């Protein structure tokens, strides 16, 4: 009697081995979402040909193509790309500034005992302030221009980045720091030649996590005071119930966030192999 080796289930239980099936499983939620939307959109269009709430895919493509290729009559700009550029630059500036400040603070607090005493409690306290709550203060204090939008992104992201990076610096083995000094390093060299290079992949990872928060604050700030930007456009389109603009913009923002995240992840993967190896 021939016996077949026992094979664990493809799908069920904690010992399942989905194999190639996992690609199908990964695609399934996406397919279901798209199908559900398409189904209900079509149904509503049947009932009411001037339906605006759930535009069809073709309507959205048409509208987006217009925004991306036909210059605006008043400003002469390609609205879609102009919005994208403005928003991306704002996030880059806001998160960039937050990165710069949090790296400095993390080194200061993480390396120097006096820096810890001076800065630890203060930055922790700052991180409890809900950033959106101080948006009015920013608007009053520095006006409705670019600075307040970048400022909100900065304030929204830097406290957590600082906390994360400080923890990382403090987590470096004490032995390594003592060893560095016995190898003849100056304190300056310890920071810039030993600690900072080891921080870089963590900085990239912190940026990855902060970009998500950056988008939230960007959209809030643009919704309140702006004349262009992806967030601004969404809030403006809401006034006309222009779902054929809002939905593609949301998808576009999601895609941009995904692209940025993937790039940063790949940078760590290819340029800092030691980082992943030492994490486990």
């Amino acid at each position, binding site marked *: 009697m021939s016996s077949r080796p026992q094979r664990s289930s493809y799908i069920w239980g904690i010992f399942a081995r989905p194999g190639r099936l996992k690609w199908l499983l990964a695609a399934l939620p996406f397919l279901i979402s798209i199908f559900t939307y398409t189904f209900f959109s079509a149904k509503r269009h049947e009932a009411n040909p001037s339906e605006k709430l759930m535009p069809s895919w073709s309507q959205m493509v048409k509208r987006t193509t217009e925004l991306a290729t036909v210059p605006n009559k008043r400003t002469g700009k390609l609205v879609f790309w102009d919005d994208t550029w403005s928003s991306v630059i704002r996030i880059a500036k806001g998160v960039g500034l937050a990165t710069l400040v949090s790296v400095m603070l993390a080194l200061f607090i993480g390396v120097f005992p006096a820096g810890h005493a001076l800065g630890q409690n203060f930055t922790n306290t700052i991180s409890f302030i809900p950033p959106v709550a101080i948006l009015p203060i920013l608007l009053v204090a520095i006006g409705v221009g670019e600075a307040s939008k970048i400022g909100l992104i900065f304030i929204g992201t830097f406290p957590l980045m600082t906390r994360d990076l400080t923890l990382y610096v403090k987590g470096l083995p004490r032995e390594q720091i003592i060893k560095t000094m016995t190898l003849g390093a100056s304190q300056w060299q310890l920071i810039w030649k030993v600690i900072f290079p080891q921080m870089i992949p963590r900085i990239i990872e912190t940026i990855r996590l902060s970009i998500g928060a950056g988008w939230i604050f960007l959209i809030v700030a643009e919704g309140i005071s702006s004349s262009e930007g992806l967030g601004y456009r969404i809030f403006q389109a809401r006034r006309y119930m222009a779902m054929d603009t809002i939905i593609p913009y949301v998808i576009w923002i999601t895609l941009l966030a995904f692209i940025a995240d993937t790039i940063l992840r790949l940078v760590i993967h290819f340029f800092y192999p030691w*980082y992943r190896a030492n994490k486990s």
Partner: protein
Amino acid sequence: MNILHFQDVDKAYPTPNGDDFLVLDNIDLTIKKGEFCTLVGPSGCGKSTLLKLILGQEQATQGTLTIRDNIAGNPDSTRGIVYQRYSLYPNKTVLENVLAGPFFKIPFWKKDERAEVKAYALELLEKVKLGEHTAKYPHELSGGMQQRVAIIQALITKPEILLMDEPFGALDPGTREFMQTLLLELWEEYNLTILFVTHDLEEACYLGTRLLVLSQYYSDDRGEDFQRGAKFVVDQQLHRGALSTHVKEKPDFNKLVESIREQGFNPKYLQHVKEFDLNHPDSWSTLSLEEHNS
């Protein structure tokens, strides 16, 4: 020539209830150039504290500690250290790790000097059989290889004294013996002065030219209830013949190990301070009046 000199050194740590807990108790020690000192002692006796004092990571509560007649300050390149773990920079390759020390001192525009040191580093790596692994990162190396890099990394800056804190403690027995003979070769060739902390008595007796036992199990005239810190209870010269690890199987060697185990590690075996086995030529110790008033 004296490299390291302790005089009447006490180290106490504050405890939560406000008292001080004495770890090292009136320590005297002189280490001469070229000595290979091994330091053993029961756990909690203060071996690590002693190392931290020498490194400058901790400060003595009392007494003076000098390296080449200079008061030992914050950690600097007069002392080298090899730890059991975390010794290497994870973000640097083997060669970069070894060059870290010299390159702190040689600015990047002095290309010739840097090239010279690099050649020397490669030579050293070749010597410890890492010639083929110079471009690897520490996480790609075995434990023994990592420790070989760490040793080269520390000795390339030519410290006055090389401190080693259980450097082979995490290695399997075979690798360990290989590392022991390798270390002895390096010690001989580069005339190193080493203080080697271990909890393995056999290792201590095999490697050292001088064996130090630090222990809190002893008696003196300060009364029964006195909370004593650790002292050196044994300070012996060891005679080493061949580098072969076969000596470990000889009866004399085992007798030595057993007698040290009794003197240093048995909590019930309390020698009086005046009867310690301190027969090494460099050994000395001054006792306070309270310690031997009889």
